[in-house]
């Protein structure tokens, strides 16, 4: 008797559970990096899209990487519809068959009438991914505590002239590039040097010089916080996070663009996404000329479409021109490196292993 009751109870609760997931199936789940960045997307993409189509959007945060996409696709239960990823992750996930392919020719033409494939900046459209922004890793300092602040990447590694703790992202990527630039390697030669074992040794040797002064961060929201708390004197960070701390919260932070390593963020659709068609529609909408330009008024990341640039104006609630704040602004690009996704796809595992071994020593 009790057993049948129990079974009946289980059956009912299962039915309720499956019913409740079915009820959410119509919502579009958009996954991004959280904080100021997700906020800019909510303002520039989500809200106008909801107003236009009436589709409900569920926004989720994550910390990058393709592990969750892989787990969902392999389990055959894909709950994410569209995800904002870094370039090397987009390439790798695409190579491994985890993503839907996206035909770039179906994207809307630019506001100036140019076809999408012409309008997007070179190297921003891929088989499974469409870039929305250009972002950058830079370093920043608190100008109220350092009136004569650092100017170059070499200064970041100069603990005598600029004493204090340094914040660095925990991982080999970008740190090795920074180390080489600080050691005098020209921006254009960084990856050819890194491809040699001596180059890797050289980068680690340079990192060794500041190892004792480093505080490691992992989430993008950490560095502005660490800088504000005085936990670090200088820190590497994503440029948009620092800009928003300055523009939004009035923090006295200063960005040093010398040696910046810029990269792309792209939309991808996991294979088997429940709302694939809506996701594609959302992707096309959010990467249109106007929406990309609108996002640039909430965070200082450069739009991936050429036709968006002329429309980029001021910060949404302050009189700050966004143009000079962009990683792609010519004045900021004088000594800049584009993240080489192929180098990192090939060497990330090995270099991170060495990085971890180096850290643990």
């Amino acid at each position, binding site marked *: 008797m009790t057993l049948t009751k129990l079974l009946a109870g289980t059956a009912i609760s299962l039915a309720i559970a499956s019913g409740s997931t079915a009820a959410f199936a119509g919502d579009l789940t958009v996954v991004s990096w959280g904080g100021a960045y997700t906020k800019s997307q909510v303002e520039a993409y989500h809200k106008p899209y909801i107003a236009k189509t009436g589709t409900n959007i569920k926004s989720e945060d994550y910390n990058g*990487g*393709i*592990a969750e996409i*892989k787990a969902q*696709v*392999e389990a055959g239960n894909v709950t994410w519809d569209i995800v904002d990823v870094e370039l090397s992750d987009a390439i*790798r996930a*695409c*190579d*491994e*068959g*985890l993503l839907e*392919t996206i035909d770039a020719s179906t994207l809307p033409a630019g506001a100036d009438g140019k076809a999408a494939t012409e309008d997007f900046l070179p190297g921003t459209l891929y088989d499974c991914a469409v870039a929305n922004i250009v972002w950058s890793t830079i370093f920043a300092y608190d100008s109220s505590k350092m009136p004569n602040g650092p100017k170059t990447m070499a200064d970041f590694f100069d603990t005598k002239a600029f004493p204090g703790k340094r914040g660095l992202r*925990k991982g080999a990527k970008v740190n090795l590039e920074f180390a080489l630039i600080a050691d005098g390697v020209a921006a254009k030669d960084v990856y050819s040097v890194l*491809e040699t074992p001596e180059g890797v040794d050289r980068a*680690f040797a340079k990192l060794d010089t500041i190892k004792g002064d480093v*505080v*490691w961060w992992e989430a993008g929201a950490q560095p502005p916080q660490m800088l504000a*708390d*005085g*936990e670090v004197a200088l820190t590497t960070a994503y440029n948009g996070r620092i800009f928003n701390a300055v523009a939004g919260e009035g923090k006295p932070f200063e960005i040093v663009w010398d040696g910046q390593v810029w990269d792309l963020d792209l939309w991808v659709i996991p*294979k088997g996404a429940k709302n694939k068609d809506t996701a594609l529609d959302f992707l096309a909408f959010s990467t249109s000329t106007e929406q990309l330009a609108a996002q640039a008024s909430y965070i200082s990341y450069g739009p991936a479409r050429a036709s968006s640039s002329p429309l980029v104006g001021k910060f949404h609630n302050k009189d700050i021109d966004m143009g000079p704040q962009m990683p792609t602004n010519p004045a900021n690009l004088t000594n800049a490196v584009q993240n080489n996704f*192929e180098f990192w*796809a*090939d*060497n*990330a*595992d*090995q270099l*991170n*292993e*060495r990085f*971890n*071994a*180096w*850290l*643990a020593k």
Partner: protein
Amino acid sequence: MSDTAINTMGNKAQNAAVNNGPLIAADGTPLKQKLAKTTRAMKTRAFLLTMPLVLFIIISFVIPIGQMLHRGFYNPAVSNVMPSFSVAIKDWDETTGELPSEEIFEIFVKDLALAKKNREVGKTVGNMATRINYELPGSRSLFTKSARKAGKITEGPYKEALFALDKKWDNHNLWRTLKRASNDYTISFFLAALDMKYDEAGNITRADELYRIYVPILMKTLLLSALITLLCFLIAYPVAYLLSTLPLATSNLLMILVLLPFWTSLLVRTSAWIAMLQQQGIINNIFVFLGLIGDESRIQMIYNQTGTVISMVHILLPFMILPLYSVMKTIPPSYMRAAKSMGATNTYAFRRVYFPQTIPGIAAGTLLVFILAIGYYITPALVGGSDGLFISNLIADHIKKTLNWSLGSALAAILLVVVMVFYWMYNRLVGVDKLKFG
């Protein structure tokens, strides 16, 4: 002899006959069968009652752990992506120093072109490239790039055509690695987990010193776990003694102080330690306020080993206190009084009478704390910084970030073996039957 006597004898004979034959139950079946039948029914019912638990253990424990162990050895990436090639390469004798034959190259190029078209999860060129890249770092793009062009090679000689695409293909070690990886079962991941690798000649050697990480971290995990267990013991023993000797009302109140943190979320407690120990945190502030240290020389107490040890001792402390308390509670105070009345000093009585009786509690507490500590993940991840990491953090890294699940599984399997070895040693030293958890 009277009739009755004869009757009695007849009955006896009858009884004897019955006794010699099987006992019969009321319904005529032999009693033994009947008993077996009823006990079998009862056993079945009892077993059916445990079925949910058995199923639960099988589904949630045995199968996943089995899969994990399996994954550490089993990686079919190459044979999934290139079914024909992975069979053909087995005929190649790599010890001759020659590259594989032209036929094998032809099969390879054709398989590569076919694989390029495949978008099925787990069967793409990317999967194979990732697999080979684990053993030959930097070779990933060689596969993905060449696969894009492999379809254009339609006629021989295939070897030259492939070398023309990229001269990196002309590498004996690359083909040796491919042959090794085309075997679905491999020990490569266990080698990597033990900081070893195959060298150019195909022999197993230790990894380059700069890349050795897993064994040192495993050792550090064991050392720190031992230290945490020791600290827990030193703190918990007096606390448990106090709790067991105080009057019930007071000890209950104190017990709540022990249990309250135990019931509080792990994350909350860990975050509380961050607030306490960080450089701008409460403890440093107090030190600066008291003038013990200068504002410039605040002590780094978190995001390193110290932080990990402090917060883990706090978090695991109840697991030591509770078994100790439950054992101490059962030791009658009269034993100590008796020892003292016979002239033993306090120390002597404690050493010879009280302490030996608490050993089952100590054994249970240290085993619990040590084994929990070895596999701890969240606290070291939050407060460990760069040098307070545990092996489980590296496992999580491979499952979550690098997606090298095989290496993660191999590391987890090694951790499992280490825990089992400790359990076995413990059993030999203390005896598991002596454990008392309360």
